[in-house]
C-alpha cells in the first residue's frame, strides 16, 4: 500500500512535538556542575610521598611537559655497623599543562602509584605561562582524585589479589602436605 500523501509531513510534526515534551539536553555548566564519568581526564595529581624520582614519567612523556629536579641524600645506617644508604629527594615536580596532551602515559608508567587522574578541570589561566603547575598545586589536586570505580560484576580479579591468592594457596598446600606427612 502506498503511503498516505502528507503522512511524512505529519511524522515530522510529531517528532518536533515529541521532542518538546522530553527533557532538554542542555548542560547548564557554570550554574550546574557536570556529572563526569569515572576516570575522567581532568588534571594530573601528584602523591609525592610515593615518588622516588625514578624519572620514568618525565622520560616517557611524549611532549616533555614534566619537570623534575632532585638531589641525593645520605641516610645514616639503620643498625650499628650497617652501611649508609642514599635516597633521592624531590626538589621540584612541575607539569606544564600548556604542553600536556592528556595521554596519561606518565600515570600508566609510574611504578609507585604517585600520579593520578583527577576530574578537576577548571584551571584555565589568562597567561599560558601560568599553566605550569608546581608540586604544591599538583598535591592539592591529589585530594580531588576519586576512589577507583568498583569492578564489573563478572570482571577478572585484580592482578595483585590474584598473585596474593596464588601465594596463599601455595603456602596452604605446603602446610597441609607437611601436616599430612607427620
Amino acid at each position: 500500500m502506498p503511503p498516505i500523501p502528507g503522512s511524512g509531513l505529519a511524522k515530522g510534526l510529531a517528532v518536533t512535538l515529541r521532542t518538546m515534551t522530553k527533557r532538554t539536553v542542555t548542560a547548564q555548566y557554570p550554574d550546574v556542575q557536570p556529572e563526569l564519568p569515572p576516570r575522567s581526564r581532568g588534571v594530573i595529581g601528584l602523591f609525592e610521598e610515593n615518588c622516588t624520582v625514578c624519572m620514568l614519567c618525565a622520560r616517557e612523556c611524549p611532549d616533555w611537559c614534566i619537570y623534575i629536579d632532585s638531589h641525593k641524600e645520605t641516610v645514616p645506617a639503620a643498625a650499628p655497623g650497617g652501611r649508609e644508604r642514599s635516597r633521592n629527594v624531590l626538589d621540584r615536580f612541575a607539569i606544564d599543562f600548556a604542553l600536556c596532551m592528556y595521554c596519561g602515559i606518565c600515570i600508566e608508567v609510574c611504578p609507585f602509584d604517585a600520579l593520578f587522574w583527577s576530574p578537576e578541570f577548571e584551571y584555565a589561566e589568562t597567561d599560558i605561562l601560568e599553566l605550569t603547575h608546581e608540586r604544591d598545586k599538583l598535591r592539592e589536586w591529589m585530594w580531588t582524585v576519586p576512589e577507583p570505580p568498583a569492578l564489573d560484576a563478572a570482571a577478572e580479579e585484580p592482578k595483585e589479589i590474584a598473585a596474593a591468592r596464588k601465594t596463599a594457596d601455595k603456602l596452604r598446600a605446603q602446610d597441609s602436605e607437611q601436616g599430612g606427612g607427620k
Partner: protein
Amino acid sequence: MNDVLDVAIRLVIVFAVFMVLPLVVGQAEHKVMAHMQGRLGPMYAGGFHGWAQLVADGVKFAQKEDIVPAAADRRVFQLAPAVALLPYLLVLVALPIGPSEGAVGQVVDAGIFFVLAVMGVGVLGSLMAGWASANKFSLLGGLRTAAQLLAYELPMLLAAASVAMAAGTVSLPGILNAFQWWWLPWQIVGALVFFVAGLAELQRPPFDMPVADSEIIFGAYTEYSGLRFALFLLAEYAGIVVLCGLTTVLFLGGWHGPLGADGLGWVWTLLKTAVLAFVVIWLRVTYPRLREDQLQKLAWTVLIPLALAQIALTGIVKVAID
C-alpha cells in the same frame, strides 16, 4: 470631546497590542523552538527563564549604528522598514476581537478588502529594501520576494473570497456575526490555503527563501543594521500576529467559543490566535526551506485549485441552504 478621547484610547490600545503581542510571539518562538530541538533557549535575561531576552535585544539594536551604504538609494532605503511594519498596525485596527460593537479599533465596512490590500503593502517594504540597498544579495532577496508574491497572493484572496461568499458580507464583524460552528468543516480547505499562503506572505519557514540566510545572507535586509533592522524583524512577528488573528476571524469563528460558550469573547480570539502562532513556530522548526520554484508549483498546482474548489463548494452549499 468624548469622541476624540474614544479614538485616542482605541489607538493607544491597538498600539499597545501591536507592541506587546509580537514580542510575546517572538519570545514564545525562542522557547518553543529551543525545546523542540532539545535545548533550553534564553535563560539569563531578566532572571526567570530569559523572559526579557527580546527587551535586551531591543536595547542592543537601539545602541547600534544606523548605517546607510554609500551607493544606496538613501531615502527609499531609510523608508523601507516603516513601509514593511506600518501596514500590520493598520490591519490590527480593523480586526474585531470581541462580540460587542466596541471591541474593534475601527469598523471598516469593506473589511476583507481593506485588510488584504493593506497586508499586501507590507511586502513593498522588502521590495524597496531589496532594490535600494545596492547589494546583490539584497537584490536577489527582493527578486525572490517579488516571485513569491506571484505565488501566494491569488490563493489567499480566493480563500478569503470564499468566506465572504459564505457570510454574504465583506465586513469582518459581519462575518463573525454570521458565523456558525459548521462553517469550520465547510471552510476548512479554504482555511488551510489561506494559512499556507499567509506563511508565504510573511516569508516564514518553510517559505523563507527571500531571507534564506544560508544562501543570500539575509535577503533584502542584508544591509540593514540597528533600529531599522529591528523594525524589519518586528514586522515579521507583527505579521504572524496579524495573519493568525485574521485566520481566526475569517475561519475559526473569532470570539465564538465552542458549544455556544461565547461569554469571554476576546479571550477566545486571543486563545485561537495564540494556538495558530504556535503552529507557525512549529512549522518553522519542523520543515526545511522550499525552493522558490517549489513554492510556485505548490501555489499554482495545489493551493489555487483547492481555493477554487472551496469557492465552488461554498457556492453550492450557499445556494442549497438558501
